């Protein structure tokens, strides 16, 4: 895959994330890659797989405060059950990834990029690596709190 195509795909994902965060949670984020990328704290990671011409995955990582904020704003109520927080974040990741892929698929007909259902990971000092990803980009955002999106695609 040409690096311009990968950059375009990343841009679609980032734009979609910003749009969906505003639409679903009324949250505004700013790209800020000067932040410390290591979260040695309890965090939630949602991984959404991508299959099709350019397989890959989108990984959304948030610290505890951010997870709670996004989920509560999506639901419009206080959430006391952590499962509800994780399920909300999982769908948030599914929706912004899906909206991003829609733009990419329409731009590159025949790509047939499709999502796989989100996986949820929660823990402290969680380090997730995905093998066989040739193109990867990590983007940090600040706003209410800390959030990272890791975009990876493989193949031609």
């Amino acid at each position, binding site marked *: 895959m040409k690096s311009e195509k990968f950059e375009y795909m990343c841009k679609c994902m980032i734009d979609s994330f910003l749009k*969906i965060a505003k*639409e*679903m949670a009324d949250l505004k984020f700013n790209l800020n890659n000067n932040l410390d990328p290591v979260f040695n704290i309890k965090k939630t990671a949602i991984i959404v797989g991508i299959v099709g011409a350019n397989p890959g995955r989108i990984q959304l990582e948030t610290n505890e405060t951010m997870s709670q904020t996004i989920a509560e704003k*999506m*639901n419009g109520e206080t959430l006391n059950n952590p*499962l*509800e927080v994780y*399920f*909300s974040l*999982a*769908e948030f990741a*599914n*929706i912004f*990834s*899906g*909206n991003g*892929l*829609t733009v990419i*698929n*329409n731009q590159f*007909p*025949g790509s*047939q990029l*499709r*999502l*796989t*259902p989100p996986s949820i990971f929660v823990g402290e000092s969680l380090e997730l690596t995905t093998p066989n990803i040739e193109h990867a980009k990590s983007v940090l955002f600040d706003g209410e709190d800390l959030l990272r999106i890791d975009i990876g695609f493989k193949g031609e």
Partner: protein
Amino acid sequence: MIQIVIIDDSPFIIKAIKKTLEPHGFNIIGHALNGKDGLEVIWQKKPDIVILDVTMPIMDGLETAKFIFEHKIPVKVIMLSAMGDDELIETAKNYGVKEFLNKPLKTDDLINVIKSLA
């Protein structure tokens, strides 16, 4: 009263749809987290309308829609997906899906489509 079943792997979406539709007098009579279980719920509850997600484990929404139309199961299908590219919509339409909505869920759109099918 219109009877609706929701098939979506996201508990968040199931809750959001219930919260959206119930105050408008629609009756959510069942739900399932994948297409396979969803077909079972449709079989048992005989809803008027099914709101069907695309990305789901075990049996996705496209396979589920294909099964519903091939077997002429008497239920109206509204597909509701985070994805909505031309090729996906085309595939869904070829299977028989007439109504395709995108996530995030827009309350008015969903209610209008349900009313148009009723």
